[in-house]
Each structure stands twice: as C-alpha cells, then as structure tokens.
C-alpha cells in the first residue's frame, strides 16, 4: 500500500507468507504422502524421504530343506530373498546379533557347516555337503535398500479390513439428513424473526444469540436420559439414527436461525411491501421471494452444518453408540488410534479417508463458507 517501502520489504513479505503456508500445509501433505507409501518403508523412514531410496533391515526365511536339490554331489537351496522386487542388498548375516556381518558376494559359514551366499540382487544359495534336514528354512538378515514404492494397498486394507468403509456409510447417513432437516425449520423461524412484527421478538432473538454459545456438554446427560426414557417407553432402541438427526438439528438451529435472520433482515423492504400490496400473504412472500433470495445464506449454513456433523465425534458416540456397526468415521479413527497406535499406514490412510469429504466440500464451496463465517462469527464450531 505504501509504494515507497515496496521492493526490499516485499521480499520479506513473500518469504514469510511462504513459510507460514508451508507450516500450515506440510502436516496434511505428510499425512497424504505417508498414506500412499509402502507400509514397510513408511515404518522406517520419514515421509520427506519418500522419493529417495530407503534402506531397511529385514529378516527373511529361506525355503526349508524340502526345496533342496542335489547338484554335483552337493545339496543346494536357492532363490531370491527379495521375492523378485526391485532393490539392492548391501549386507547380510544369519545371526540377530550381527545382522550385517557379511557383504554381498561373500560366503557365510553357517553353524552346521552349510555355506550361504547372497548376491546384491537378492539371489542366494545355501550349499551343503550333506543332505539338509529339519522342516524350517534358514533365517537370513539382510540390509536392503529399496527404491521408493507408492501403493494404494493401505487404502484397500482400511476400507475392507478395518471397518472404515462401513463407517464412511455411517457418517454419510448421519451428516446428510442432519444438514437438510434444520434448514427448513430455521428458515421459517428466521423469517418470522426478521419480518413479522410480534411482541417478544427482541427477547426471542436474544435467546437465540445466547443459545449459540451454550456448550454441548450441558445437553449430553439430560438428553441421554431423555432418549433412554423415550426408548424404554416405546420399546425401541435409545440410540438410533433418528435420534442423532434430531439432536444435530436441535444443536444446529441457533446458528441456522441467527445466520438466516441476519441475512433476511438485510433484504430490501420494498420487495416485500410491493408484494404485500399485490395481495400476497406472508406464506407466499416467504416461499416465492425470501427463500430464493436467501440462497447464499442457506448454502453457507448447509456447508457449516455438514462440516460440523461430519466432523463431530461427541454427539455421535453419545447418541449413536460406539459399537462396530454404528461408529462414524471420527469414532472409528479414535478407536484405531488406540488399537493400531503404531501402524501409521493404517492411521494415515484412515485419517485421509475421514478428511477427504470435508476437504472437497471446502475447496469447492469455499466462497459460501467465508460468507457464512462473516455473517455469523459469534458461534465457534
């Protein structure tokens, strides 16, 4: 804005914004990159090395004596320790205390007189003068450097074996109706509060503003008891999708009414007055004029509510339950953090599936989200 300070200072501005953006995006980028890496590589090297060759110590068991063949009077077991995958072996050993005792190409003398040779490409040979016995194959420790491997295996695994697929459907089941239902209820109420004069209107608006910040924690215990009571009375389960849809509707209403009322109150009075002169009723005015004009506000509330219900954990575990069939994505992810704490290939892939839908919504509808934020910045999540 000040042309005099432009050139030298601008570089500082560009650089600092770049650093901040890097700081804000790298965590998510790390998650995405990690979720696509081979799980063995992910466990031994940081995601920032994903494109370089990684070196890892692995233990392989050679085929057992069943696989031996007689050649020139000697008994030989041969094969490839890397299973034919690309990679390079730099060292090997047969003892867990000295896993890198031998370089490739060298011959190791095993305890029982057998000779083990391992080549850089993973080919190996165990040669013995006598017929080898026993049922288990020789353990071989190798230091292998493998080229970067990217795969969708992690996603396939979490979607099928870890229940993420099921939870995805559950999240969708919760979020979509819980987004749509409050809109209509809130829109009528907002119109009444914005354009229909009646005694007590100011107090009602104040109540809505107050309810915006009521902590969810206050609602949990009484509602849980209420749901249990209703469930017992009608002989139906207390934890149902209908219950959670209505709960999200109730919790979302203050923001919905507040946002929509502010927006509708800003619409020009003349439109409504001329329609009224033409003989339109309040109902007609609302449906034919206000509702279409309020589309931007309706859209921003819908985005808020969708993000909030999709990302919610608390309401879902309290009112839907924590059983394997009813867990939503966030709940499933918390469970995985407990049970699969060290398996980053599972955690990163699951987390990415959890956040992908909100991210798509965010990037495609950001305009409405910003507008809604600016209109209703009293509530925070």
């Amino acid at each position, binding site marked *: 804005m000040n042309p005099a300070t432009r050139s030298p200072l601008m570089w500082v501005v560009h650089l600092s914004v770049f650093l901040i953006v890097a700081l804000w995006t790298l965590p998510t980028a790390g998650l995405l990159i990690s979720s696509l890496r081979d799980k063995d590589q992910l466990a031994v090297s940081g995601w920032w090395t994903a494109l370089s060759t990684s070196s890892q110590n692995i233990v392989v068991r050679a085929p057992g004596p069943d696989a031996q063949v007689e050649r020139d009077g000697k008994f030989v077991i041969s094969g490839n320790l890397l299973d034919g995958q690309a990679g390079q072996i730099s060292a090997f050993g047969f003892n867990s205390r000295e896993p890198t005792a031998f370089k490739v190409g060298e011959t190791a003398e095993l305890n029982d007189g057998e000779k083990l040779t391992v080549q850089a490409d993973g080919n190996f040979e165990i040669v013995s003068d006598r017929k080898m016995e026993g049922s288990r194959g020789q353990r071989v420790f190798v230091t292998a450097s493998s080229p970067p491997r990217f795969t969708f295996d992690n996603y396939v695994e979490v979607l099928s074996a870890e229940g993420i697929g099921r939870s995805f459907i559950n999240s969708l089941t919760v979020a979509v*109706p819980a987004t749509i239902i409050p809109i209509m209820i809130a829109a009528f109420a907002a119109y009444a509060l914005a354009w229909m004069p009646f005694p007590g209107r100011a107090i009602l608006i104040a109540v809505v503003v107050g309810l915006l910040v009521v902590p969810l924690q206050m609602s949990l215990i009484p509602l849980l008891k209420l749901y249990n009571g209703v469930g017992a009375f009608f002989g139906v389960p207390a934890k149902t999708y209908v219950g959670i849809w209505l709960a999200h509707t109730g919790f979302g209403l203050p923001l919905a009414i507040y946002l929509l009322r502010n927006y509708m109150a800003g619409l020009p009075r003349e439109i409504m007055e001329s329609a009224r002169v033409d003989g339109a009723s309040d109902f007609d005015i609302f449906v034919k004029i206000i509702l279409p004009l309020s589309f931007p506000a309706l859209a921003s509330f819908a985005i808020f509510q969708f993000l909030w219900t999709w990302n919610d954990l608390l309401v879902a575990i309290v009112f839907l339950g924590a059983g394997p069939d009813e867990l939503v994505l966030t709940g499933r992810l918390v469970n995985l953090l407990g049970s699969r704490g060290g398996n980053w290939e599972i955690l990163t892939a699951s987390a990415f599936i959890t956040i992908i839908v909100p991210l798509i919504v965010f990037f495609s509808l*950001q305009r409405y989200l910003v507008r809604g934020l600016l209109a209703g910045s009293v509530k925070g999540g």
Partner: protein
Amino acid sequence: MFYQLAAAAGFMLAGVLGCAAYFWGTSFVLDLIFPSKGKSGAVASRNLRITNAIRPWLFLAPALFALATYLIYPVIMSLWYSFHDRAGQSFVGVSNYAWMVNDGEFRQSIYNNFLWLLVVPALATFFGLVIAALTDRIWWGNIAKTLIFMPMAISFVGAAVIWKFIYDFRPEGAEQIGLLNAIVVAFGGAPQAWITLPFWNNFFLMAILVWIQTGFAMVILSAALRGIPEETIEAAVIDGANGWQIFFKIMVPQIWGTIAVVWTTITILVLKVFDIVLAMTNGQWQSQVLANLMFDWMFRGGGDFGRGAAIAVVIMILVIPIMVWNIRNAAKEMKGH
C-alpha cells in the same frame, strides 16, 4: 448398508415434506378460519389482525420446540442433576461440587483449561491478524489464504492423527519418522516423546487447535482490514507514518470490535475442546481438560451423571460472561438497524 442409506434418504424426504406440509397446512387452516379476502371492511381487518398475530408463532413453533427440547430443557436439567447422585435420583446438595474442588484431576483440568484459554485465542488471533495483513499485499494472497484456511475443514480427530504423526517418537538412534523429532535430531538434540511430557504436552495439543483456528481468525480479520476507510490510511501516510505505525496505530484500533469477536469465539471453542485431548492423550500425562473430564465421568464406572453434570455446569459458568457480552452486542446492533 443399502437399506441404511435408503432409510436415511427416506427420513430426509419425510422430514422436508413434513415441514413443508406443516407450514403450508397451518397457514391454510389459519386463512380458512379467519378469512380476510372477500369480507366486508371491519371483519376483514379484524381477521387480518388476528392472523398477523398468530402466524409468526406458527412459523416459529417447530424451531422453538427443538430449541426447548435440545438446549433449554437440558441446561435446566444439567443444573438439576449436578445436585443429585450418580444415577440422578436422590438429592445430594453441593457434594458434587465439594468433591470437585478437592479432586486433583479436576484441579488439573481447570489449570490446563486456563492455559488453553490464555494461549490458543491469543496465538490464533495474532497469527490470523498478521497473515491477513501480509496476504492482502501479495498477488498470490488468496491462494495462501485458502491453504491456511484449509485445516478448518478437518475434524479435530483427523487433525489429531496428523499431528500425532508429527510428534511420533522413536528411541534415540533409530530413524525418526515424526517430523518434529527428525528436526530435533538433525540439530543434534535428543528425541522426545512430546505428548507424554507433563505440562509441555499441553502446548503440543494447543498447537493443533491454533493450526485449525488461525484460518478462521484470518478470514474474519482480513475482511475487517479491507473495510477500513482508505482515507484514514492515506492521511497517516501523508503525515509520514511508517508501515508498523500504520498497522498498529491506525488499522488495529479500528478493528478492535472484530478482534474481540474472533477472540471470544475461539475462547468458547477452547472451553469445549474435547476431541483433540481424547484422541491425543485421553487426559493422561497431566493433559486433562474439563470437557474430556466431563465425558469421562459420563461413562466412567457405568457413568456418574451427578459429577458429569457438575463439570458441565462449570463449563457453562465460564461461557456465561461471553454469552452476556454477545447478547448485548446483538441488541445494540439491532437498535442500529
């Protein structure tokens, strides 16, 4: 699975159609009982007055019913339960509150919550303000803003996984796959299990919320900065003010109101923070906070509703000053209309 989705779609349709039928039907019935069209002057104006008095309440009824059931009734009942025993049956006076004051875990939570309240709103608002000011001056500012705003769409649990990965710890000597420990080791330090360090782990958890909320602060403050009248800045430039002076003495004072809104909004969020602590530590290593403690007591040992409700009431009491402030602001704004 298909059945579940079909049921959800069916309920959604029924809900929307039900609402439409209610609003249309009640309006129709009202006009039928008190017709104003085609009546003589006096009757028509009397009927019009009656319908105008009733119709707002027909429009409001479903919303008021939902608000009463899901917010107002529970607030009153939570207060009531906080004076009752674990099953919510017999009156126990203030003993839940007396227990609370003497409970080490509760005191820890209060202490941690105050740390959160001091740090998170301040940092998120500060970063938001600085980023808003910086990005407004560069041609790729909107791209930068989008990327910084993005964590806002990520769930707290998802963010917890993202950051737990950054804080991941491997014993000394092993290759670190957590970014933070890798940096520490690269500078010659010893790796740490960050989230198990008492006291400091609070700050590692707070970083997650700051990361999420900075984008929110930035968007609001950026709009406020753009709303500042050009003349005030031009006048300052003519008077020879430098960049810092313009920013802190001319621009920031003009957006104090917005800064306060951002600050209080994040404060409310901090008081309710639950998912992050549950997913990262579940309150272990002295990182407990009120909302997670409350959730814990709701289910611990079959659930103690008295203590859980008492903790919820404490959170509510902390929120009330901001609630009052919001209501007064809203009232002021409406008078201005």
